[in-house]
Structure formats: C-alpha cells, structure tokens
C-alpha cells in the first residue's frame, strides 16, 4: 500500500421532506449523468425518488417520483415503494434507465413492517416491486408497473441483447427473469436465505449471483437453467463462507472479468473470470481491511467495502473503512470521525493499492458506500447509507480528459 496526499470529495445532501435516510443505489445513466436513489427505508409512508446530478448547475434534481410513476400513493397504508436497492440498470442502446424498487418502510400510519409477518396482507403488505423505465434522452418516464409480486428487488441486471432483466427478490431469495417485450416475469426458484446484493452478466449473456454460502450461482439463458457452481466467494480462512454473498461487482473495462467484494465482515477483494473454463476462475485478491479482533462479531456498518468503480484511468477504485484498533469491539456505530472512509485506488495489473481520497459526510463517517459511478467527464460519485442524516452522495473530481467517459456502461445495479 502506498499513500499520497489524499483528495477530498464534495457531499450533496438529499434535501427533501421527509428527510431521506439512505442512498442504496447510484449509477451512470446512458446519458453519462449520475442517477441516485433517494430512499426512505425507515420512514413510514416514505417513498423513493430518483435524483440526477446536474453537472451544469452542480446540484441534484429530482427526475422520478417513483410513487407517481408506479401509480401507488404513499398514503395507501401499505408498505411503500421506499427504495431502489442495487437495482438500476442502464441501457446504452435505447437510452433507458431501468429501476426496480425494494421494500422495508412501513405504510403511512404504521410503526412497524415485516415482510414475513405481513405477507399477503392486502392492506399492509408490500404489493410488489415496481419497475420503472426512464428515457434519459427525452427526460421522461416511459412506463412503470409491477415487477416482482409481493417482494422487493434486491438487485437487478440487464441483458440488452436478449431484452431481459434479471433480479433477486427479498425476502424469499428467488431468482427472477423478466421479458421486457412481454413484460412478463418468471420465478426460477430459491437461491438461499441471505440475499446476494449483486447480480451481473458476462459477455455471453450468462447471469451470475451467489447464494448465502458464498457459492456462485449461474443462469444459462440458452439452457434456461440455474446452476450452483463449484466456485466460492473468497473469505478469511477462519470463517465458513456463510453470508459471503456478493455485495458489489464491477466489470473490467475490457469486460473479460469482474472485481467484487462480499457483504460480510472481513471482506476480501475478488476477481472472477466467468468465461475461463467451465465454471469460471475465481481469484482471491486479499483482505481489504485491517486486522481486527476475531472474537468480535463486527458490525457490517463499520467493516464494509463497497462503491467499486473503474476510473477513466483504468484503475479500480473502492471505498473501505479504517478504524482505531479495538473500536470494532467497543462501539462500532459511533457517528463521529474516529473511523476513516477511504477511497483506495488499485492498479489492476500490479494489484498495488494506494489511498486516494477521503469520502466524507459533514460531521460523520461516510464509509458505508453502497454504489459508485463514473460520469461522462470521468468524475466519480458515491452513494451513502450511514447515519446521521442527511444522507446523500459524494462527488470526487478526477481531472480526467475527454467526454463520454462513462462508457462502457454498467448494466447492473
């Protein structure tokens, strides 16, 4: 690890009422602009809005009111369309940004919501995940409608050539295939118990995700079959691999491999070559965080890695946490600056890592970055989840040269 003078990011709060509590998704749109999900996951009757960073005015603008697009008022009393959770998928060919919603906020007037307890309650339950197609060329919602019945969409991927979307649902952890032409969805069955937080495709249109044991699961669209592969998400030797579900996965610029991290404490960086051999080839690129007390079950909100994105310079960037030794077993959710949120730059040829920037929120740590994106000017953006409010996104000026630097486009959430 080498260190240079750290750059600093600029924070853009979500300024709505009620105050959004999380940004679970952020992506570059087909137009090269940054879209972010302003989510209200804990707010009864709260809704999700899609915001866009306006690089001319240096501000955020609201482009989709999802409740309106879905035709589902936020005061219905049912669990609301409250967030978009790793479920943006951008289509370069037609300029459409797809977004699928997720659940967790109670209906207006309700104090609690459980997708298990309220299952099929026609007055309280989440009716369905909603899919919205937003035309970034005309700046309008083309259509919106039901997506996954009764469940939220944890993550979403697009196969533009086949005209399909793929999704993993919550809480039942099923794998779904959606045909964009017929707008019909199919359930291919259960994956496990803890959701994978990422789903991605290879150049052949095969689809990959993971089960709760960290095993890679592949869908072959030609065979129309899901298959658990003898490939595992790398993890610490002292751990079992349970809960090493994929968290964030980004494709290399060449598209021949992906880099990723699991949603677990002690995350390791992985590189996976899906087209290498019958099951692909997994590489363990090592732990992203410092050593810590292995007897402590560390809070994911501290020991978290996310926001993987390639820069226009061909380097991989990702956000990690660095905390004072021992803090992980004392007070991991302190909302102060005793832990650092760092953007690491990695040269993918040499695997050399450099501390590159500090990703901060005013007065709070900002290390739980959900997703990152690169805009048309090559600048990097990061979605924040951690409290206290307000949440929002961070922007990092990268001094890249040229335009359309958002390409190649990320087609999964």
């Amino acid at each position, binding site marked *: 690890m080498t260190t240079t003078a750290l750059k600093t990011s600029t924070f853009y709060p979500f300024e709505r009422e009620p105050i959004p*509590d999380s940004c679970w998704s952020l992506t570059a749109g087909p137009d090269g602009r940054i879209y972010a999900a302003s989510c209200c996951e804990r707010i009864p009757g709260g809704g999700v809005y899609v915001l866009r960073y306006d690089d001319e005015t240096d501000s955020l603008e609201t482009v989709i009111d999802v409740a309106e697009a879905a035709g589902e008022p936020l005061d219905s009393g049912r669990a609301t369309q409250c967030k978009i959770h790793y479920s943006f998928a951008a289509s370069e060919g037609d300029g459409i940004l797809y977004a699928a919603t997720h659940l967790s906020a109670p209906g207006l007037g309700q104090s609690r919501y459980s997708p*298990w307890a309220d299952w099929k309650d026609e007055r309280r339950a989440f009716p369905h995940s909603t899919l919205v197609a937003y035309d970034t060329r005309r700046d309008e919602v083309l259509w919106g409608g039901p997506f996954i019945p009764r469940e939220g969409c944890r993550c979403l991927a697009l196969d533009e050539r086949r005209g399909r979307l793929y999704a993993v649902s919550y809480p039942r952890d099923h794998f779904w295939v959606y045909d964009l032409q017929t707008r019909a969805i199919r359930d291919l069955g259960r994956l496990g118990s803890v959701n994978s937080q990422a789903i991605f495709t290879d150049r052949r249109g095969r689809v990959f995700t993971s089960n709760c044991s960290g095993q890679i699961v592949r869908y072959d669209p030609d065979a129309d079959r899901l298959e658990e592969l003898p490939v595992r998400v790398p993890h610490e030797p002292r751990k079992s691999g349970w809960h090493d579900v994929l968290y964030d996965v980004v494709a290399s610029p060449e598209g021949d491999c992906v880099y990723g991290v699991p949603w677990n404490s002690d995350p390791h960086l992985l590189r996976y070559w899906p087209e290498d051999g019958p099951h692909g080839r997994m590489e363990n690129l090592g732990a992203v965080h410092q050593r810590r007390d292995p007897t402590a079950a560390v809070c994911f909100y501290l020991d978290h890695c996310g926001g993987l994105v390639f820069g226009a310079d061909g380097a991989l960037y990702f956000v990690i946490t660095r905390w004072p030794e021992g803090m992980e077993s004392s007070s991991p959710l302190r909302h102060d600056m005793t832990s650092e949120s760092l953007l690491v730059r990695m040269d993918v040829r040499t695997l050399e890592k450099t501390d590159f920037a500090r990703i901060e929120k005013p007065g709070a740590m900002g290390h739980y970055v959900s997703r990152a994106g690169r805009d048309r000017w090559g600048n990097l953006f990061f979605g924040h989840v951690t409290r206290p409010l307000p949440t929002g996104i961070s922007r990092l000026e990268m001094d890249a040269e040229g335009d359309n630097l958002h390409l190649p486009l990320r087609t999964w959430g």
Partner: protein
Amino acid sequence: MAQKPIWTSLGEFVTEGTMLAVELCFPGQSIPPPAGETAVACLQLDPAGTVYCGTAGRKAHVLAALLRGDTGMVFDLGTAPGAERIDALAVVGEHVCALASGPEGAAVWRWPRMARSFLIQEWTLPRHPAEKVCDVPGDGRTAAAVVSADAAAVYALTEPAGELLRIDTASWDVEALCTVDDEGRFGRALALDGLGMIWGTRGSGVIWQCGPGTGDLADVAEVPAAAGRAQHTQVSAWARDEGTGLLYGGTAPDGFLFRLDPDTGDVTGLGKPTRLEQVNCLAVGNDGRLFGAAGLEEDIGHVFCHNPAAGSLRDLGTPVSTLAARQYGYHFRCMLTGPNGEIYLGQHERVSHLWIYFPPVPRRVRRIQE
C-alpha cells in the same frame, strides 16, 4: 413522520421449541444433490430410526437421514431413473421402496435400507444401484399415496383419473380398487385409519372411505368449509393419532383444520390455524399435539400446533434455523414424527433441507399444598 427502528423481528418466526435445518449431505464430506432436485416430497421412518426423504425436481432422489446418536449425516441413496418425484416411501423387509413418477410413467424402485452407527469418524458408506420392483399402470402421475402401517400395501391415487391403486409389497401386484371421482375432483391426500380403511375427499368436500380389500367406496361426511366454499374444498393433508385413532385433516384452498372420528364419521372443525390458504402436511406428536405446515409454494409458510388437551390452536410462525444451517424455511410438504417426539419437516423448495422441530416440553405445574 417520525423515524422508528424496524430491524427487529415481530415474533413472526417460530416462537416456541427449536428448529434445525439439516443439510442434505454428509457435512464436510459430501455435497447435497443439485438445487432443483431436493424438494422433499415425502418422508418415511425406518424402525432403526433412519428418516428417508423422497425428493422432486429434475431428478427424484431417495435420501437416508441418519441423525441420531453418533451418526449425523444425510446420504443420497440415488435417483429413481426417469422419475421427477418420489410419491411415497415404504420400508419393506430389508429395503426402502419408492413409488416414483415422471414423464415415463410410475414405478416402484428399491434400495437396501440404510442403518449405520459410529459415523463420527472412519465411515464406509457404499451406494447401491436402484432396483426396479414393478411398473405402476396409469399415465405416470400420482396425486397422493399412503403406506399401510405394516408396509404390506401402498395405496396410490392416480392423476388425473383419480384411480385408487393397491400395490401389494409382497407380490408387487398392482390392483385398481376404484375411481374416487368420475369428474376428477378429488383431494390430493390419503389417510389410513387403525383398521386399514383408506380415507380421502372428492367432489364438493365429501369425505370418502374405502375398504382396503374390497374397493368399496362410501361417502361418510363433509369437510368443514367456509360458507359456500364446500364446492372448492378438499383435504390436502391428513394425520392419524395412534393413541386415539382419530384422524386430523387440513384443507385446501382455505386452510381449515378438523378432526374426524373414523368409527363414527363425526367431524369437528378446529378452526383456521394460520392466515394462509392451504394446509400442506400434518403430524401427531408423541404427546398428542398436532403439528402442521401451511402455505402455497409462492408463500412464506407457517407451522402451527393444535393441542387437543388444551383445546388450543396456535400459529407458531415461519420456520427459521439458526443452529445447524442458518436458513429460513418457507414451504413444507411433508411431516413425520420421530421416535423421540421430534417432528421432521420436508422442505419443498429449489434449495431444501430436512428440518427437525423439537417442540417445547411443558413445565410441570407445582401443586400448592393447601
């Protein structure tokens, strides 16, 4: 709109007793059959304590679960060639026999029984090929099947014809006893009472019984149903209390529970144990408590308990296992009471486990000396 913390459970998961999800393999030594082939469709108990599981999916496996004492593993005996579902399992002599069905028809296959001890280290576990015992006439689909207490016969109900077959496990002759409903409206569940009479439902919620040797079918009673819903109602799960001889039934599509006295034909409605549509399976525990699982394949299912001594009916919640495998359990199709009163549940999903429920043992009430 005030923010409130919501990341706590609300009592929606099993609230009493302990649930364990057991992987369908020898942990650390083998892997389960592929996902999509592990939906447990039926269970059977070997006198030696082995629990056999028959699966459904692209292939139909027969698994032997040895979970007691110094064993602790599930062994894949093999698949029934060409089959997509094991409809029933019977322990006959030294074999476990499986009625299996698929596009190529139905047949009975068998394997040597699996009884082992001392599997904590240094094991020898040979796998034997499946041996075909007999073909079963019909179009290859079995709606329901039940095995007589002495394993002398397997009774199977064909689909869609609704023909009740008797498969003699000594001669392996297959005899058609009767057709339970000419219009194909019948329940996908069968029961046997203490006299060996076969019970099922047909038409508009009519309970029938059939003599095991005669094939004479008689309508006995009506299934309890919501008002005006009898025409849609069938029994989807049965269980027999060996202590009292009573039968319990659970219904589809509305998910009611009832008790049937096979001697008198008296039916007593016990209510609706969960808010879900369908009762999938039932088992009577050693102490007389009745356990069941409800919910469609699309659902987040619940398990429930009826205690006849207390007259109580209780939704126990959604199965979850945090010991052994950490899993949610959403859909179950079969249930069995083990020798020690533990309840085995066959999970019926793309990725499935064999679940064990240990019901709570009630605390004795201290008598206060007057």
